[in-house]
């Protein structure tokens, strides 16, 4: 490693933060773009499972709340793509790479939402898992990303409230409603346990080495289990993992998540990947005239 790069590495590892105009190693810039772009893609693709339920929301209040959540997430993707753009990759290119399958998005957004129970579990637990990762990004070595993460975490905290409220309402309802929640939890548990990634040691994780992330994958998963399993249990729900328990030393033990499934899904082979990417592509095509008209108007 050349001395300048070593100096940069020491700087970020001792908590130093980097601005857009600062010198940075190419490898750092490339990793940043890849990581942040995937986050932007996930915010944008993440609205699609929920979008399917806007027209089927059980009450007007829920419909409005869900629409607001979708607006928040799309807003996050705009903020995040702005950060990627300043690093050198234009938003148009990010969208093109997303649609062509060249870039990735998080595993949880490749799955179907079968019932209203799924909508509650997504807003409560998927957003909870996401906020754990995002909270760790508040300390990201790339300062512009860390700064927008504050607004994003703030808005995500609304989503968890919304999700908990949906779940609590259903758990206070009929047996059929409680059953819907349990079924949704059973469906989402696998993807949730895969969400934070394989338990690679953080010192071998390039994203941690550059301090783009401030915690390892397993740390994040343990934090998720610690925060949310008790909340799941107290509602009388069952976590579909007979091995799940908290050891004396405070560490959660669980059945090994299906890493092959994770890899298969994020490389574009999830049950809903093709359909959702096709929706992005066709929507982009259909709205092309709006962008053209706006730019012509502004010119």
């Amino acid at each position, binding site marked *: 490693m050349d001395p300048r790069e070593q100096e940069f590495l020491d700087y970020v590892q001792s908590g130093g933060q980097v*601005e*857009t*105009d*600062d010198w940075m190693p190419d490898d750092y810039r490339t990793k940043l773009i890849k990581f942040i772009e995937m986050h932007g893609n996930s915010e944008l693709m993440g609205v699609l499972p929920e979008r399917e339920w806007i027209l089927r929301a059980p009450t007007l209040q829920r419909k409005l*709340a869900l629409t*607001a959540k979708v*607006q928040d997430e799309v*807003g996050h993707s*705009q*903020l995040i793509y*702005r950060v990627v*753009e*300043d*690093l*050198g990759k*234009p*938003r148009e290119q990010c969208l093109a790479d997303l649609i062509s399958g060249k870039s990735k998005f998080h595993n949880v957004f490749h799955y179907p939402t079968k019932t209203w129970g799924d909508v509650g579990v997504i807003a409560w637990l998927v957003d909870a898992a996401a*906020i754990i990762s995002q*909270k760790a990004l508040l300390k990201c070595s790339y*300062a*512009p990303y860390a*700064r*927008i*993460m*504050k*607004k*994003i*975490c*703030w*808005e*995500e*905290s*609304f989503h*968890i*409230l*919304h999700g908990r409220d949906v779940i609590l309402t259903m758990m206070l309802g009929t047996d059929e409603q409680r059953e819907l929640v349990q079924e949704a939890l059973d469906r989402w548990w696998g993807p949730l346990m895969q969400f934070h990634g394989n338990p690679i040691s953080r010192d071998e994780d390039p994203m941690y080495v550059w301090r783009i992330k401030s915690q390892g994958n397993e740390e994040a998963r343990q934090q998720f289990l610690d925060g949310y399993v008790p909340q799941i249990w107290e509602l009388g729900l069952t976590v579909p993992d007979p091995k799940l328990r908290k050891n004396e030393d405070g560490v959660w033990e669980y059945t090994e998540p299906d890493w092959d499934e994770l890899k298969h899904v994020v490389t574009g082979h999830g049950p809903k990947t093709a359909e959702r990417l096709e929706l992005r592509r066709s929507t982009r095509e259909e709205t092309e005239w709006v962008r053209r008209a*706006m*730019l012509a*108007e*502004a*010119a």
Partner: protein
Amino acid sequence: MEGEGGNPEVPPDGILGDAEARPEEEGGTWGKHGFPHGSEQSERRSVIYEVFRQERKGQAFAHAGSVEAPNEAFAEPYAREQYGRRGESTALWVVPREAVHEIEDFADELGRNYHRVDGYPLKEKLGRARERAEASRAS
């Protein structure tokens, strides 16, 4: 902020530990933003606008982030949606990035410490003055 008449969506303080953003920290301190003129693309048809927000009347505006828009007429609604729709701002400044001139070198070749607190080491001198007064009283 919760409850009747307030925004029922605003979570109560502390519900998520440190997960909530602290709006007072948003934007950080002046001079640390590094407005990235260097990454502008010359063929871009849109403009980057930097957005500054004031959280409460009387407070300083702090950098919030940026929006991309074809012109000011579009930048305004974008900034409103991104940085004002939850009542988190009392006012916004929307400024084309090109209009922001960053100064980050503060050389002090002449050592003009009389402008600064470190030019006045009162504590040490006061200690010595007290000792002297004490000594002259004793003699």
